[in-house]
């Protein structure tokens, strides 16, 4: 007993000499800041968010307006083809319809980020909800929810999404927002399973902890225990999972659109979401021999976007869960 008392006072002394007590989040932020790749990722992500928000002011041209006799202009530094000279007004060239590629890329960044975020919010709501309930309730509720999760997860996700989008593509729902609403729903319906499993596992171990027992002994209602005591403790793994899932959602949009079941092209010059990277890549792929730059630029943009999020995710994982660092 005496030794514990002494070590406690020693600890107190240590605390007095130390500058400030460190919180989990403060610690994580410090670790994150030291990670160069993660900081690069964060900077890039902020840059893309800025581009997406400020798209109408940044884009030199309207992304949809077509100009005649201006199609398939190469980027301004490609001057070796005498038949096809670049137009100085279009830095990255034009596509088959004479639309400015740079402007289209800027607007496509919007769609990519929205596809990365909106379904993600639905996924978090469904996944965390199901995981919390299944893990905390246990018994037949847990059994039922986990069987459901298993069935959804046993379907190859891309195939499931394709089936859903094919089925509802021609309905009013499928046509809303150029098909974006359907993509969001399909991605969310299929994507929540791993998060639900993750949260359930966390809850299972947390609910046996003393602080939950103490809360229960104090007579705090279950809903409050879940929201105030258990949920905050599962946040770190959820954040890591989300940051890894965003790039895969962005890629999924590109894949679906490339397969012809994703976003529909828009011809409305006032549309705030006129095109996506998937659409630009499809256009570019179909005109590979005549205008490879039409494919090259969206591919490069998508690569940097995805890699930025991956760097950020890797950094967050190392920062929030130091045990796994170096894996």
């Amino acid at each position, binding site marked *: 007993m005496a030794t514990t008392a002494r070590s406690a006072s020693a600890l107190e002394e240590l605390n007095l000499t130390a500058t400030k007590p460190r919180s989990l989040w403060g610690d994580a932020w410090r670790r994150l800041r030291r990670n160069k790749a993660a900081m690069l990722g964060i900077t890039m992500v902020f840059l893309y968010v800025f581009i997406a928000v400020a798209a109408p002011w940044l884009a030199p041209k309207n992304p949809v307006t077509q100009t005649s006799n201006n199609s398939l202009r190469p980027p301004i530094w490609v001057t070796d083809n005498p038949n096809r000279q670049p137009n100085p007004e279009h830095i990255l060239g034009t596509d088959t319809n004479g639309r400015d590629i740079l402007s289209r890329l800027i607007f496509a960044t919007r769609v990519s980020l929205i596809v990365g975020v909106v379904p993600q919010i639905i996924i978090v709501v469904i996944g965390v909800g199901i995981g919390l309930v299944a893990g905390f309730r246990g018994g037949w509720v847990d059994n039922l929810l986990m069987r459901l999760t298993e*069935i959804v997860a*046993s*379907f*190859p*996700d*891309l*195939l499931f999404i*394709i*089936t*859903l989008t*094919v*089925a*509802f593509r*021609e*309905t009013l729902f499928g046509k809303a927002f150029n098909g974006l609403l359907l993509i969001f729903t399909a991605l969310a319906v299929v994507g929540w399973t791993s998060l639900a499993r993750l949260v359930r596992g966390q809850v299972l171990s947390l609910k046996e902890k003393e602080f939950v027992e103490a809360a229960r002994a104090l007579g705090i209602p279950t809903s409050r225990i879940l929201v105030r005591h258990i949920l905050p403790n599962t946040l770190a793994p959820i954040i890591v999972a989300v940051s890894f899932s965003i*790039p*895969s959602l962005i*890629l999924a949009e*590109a*894949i679906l659109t*490339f*397969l*012809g*079941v994703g976003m529909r092209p828009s011809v409305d010059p006032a549309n705030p979401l006129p095109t996506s990277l998937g659409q630009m*890549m499809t256009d570019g*792929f179909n005109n*590979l*021999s005549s205008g*490879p730059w039409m*494919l*090259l630029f969206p*591919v490069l943009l*998508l*690569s940097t976007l*995805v*890699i930025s*999020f*991956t760097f950020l995710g*890797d950094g967050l994982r190392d920062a929030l869960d130091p045990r796994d660092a*170096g*894996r």
Partner: protein
Amino acid sequence: MTAYIIRRILWQIPVLVIVGLLTFGIAKMTPGGPFDTDPTRRQMSPQVEAVLRDRFGMDLPFWRQFTRYMFLDVVTDPKTGEQAIRWGAIGGNFGPTYSSRGARTVQQELFGERGGKPSRFYYSARLGVQALLFAVLLGIPMGVLAALKQNTWIDYLVLLTSTFFVSLSTLIVGFLLVLIFASGLQWFTVLPNWNDPIRPWILPTIALGSTSLGFITRLTRSSVLEVKRQDYVRTAQAKGLNDQVVVWRHMLKNAVLPVITILGPLSAALITGTLYTEIIFQVPGMGSLLIEAIGKRDYSMIMAGALVFVFFLGLANLMVDIAYGVVDPRISYK
């Protein structure tokens, strides 16, 4: 072990039935039928449509249509009046394709040879197996190399490349390969010549295998790093064993176990990855056939595609489980 395998195979049946029910139900709910044609072109006469509807059994109740498609149907010969059982999807009969208006069956399209050329299935299966071999045979040595040279430039290079492969996915890697090697350097033709046994396979194999390559490399590296610190490795080194023997005989055997577990999810990625890899590299396989069917709203083909893909996924997972049991004798299946 045998009981376990049998149970796993039996578990596949409800999964396939649910997948069939889902795709079938969704296909039924979809507005627009398979015989709807472009309104600007010549329309089908009502008589012809009635015959077709009858042949495809489209006026039967839902459950009859489904059991008929999935399991079996009792057909009566109109002349002799004899009754016979016609098997459905579980007997490998996926019915006629809508787009050919019943002239060809789905299984002919998927598995049949077309004018002396190999079947669609052959292209997809070969591509998938090649990609997996590429990923395993390159990924494990790369991971081992990186772990043995930990914190040198070799390690960083391997880590960086594998992170790129993992995050970029098959789609971007495929596009980049086309842009660099086919469109730019022109080492390969954009339009492949499939009579050539090697050349047209190179790029799609690399693209499809790239994600798995990245995962396997990273996993091998971290598990070798873990094994490296184990006592039995130190014992082996202390005995004066040659470094090569320690690495290949003692370390690799244990380091490779996690790689086998990841092969299950990876084969899922490979199987769905064939969908767009086949489009990018114009491989005449099942994936590109399925995408064509989606465009034509050929529901019998779409459903068969989904069923076949899920079936092979289950098969791949089963083989991974068995391989795991064979490699690691500590694991026993109940």
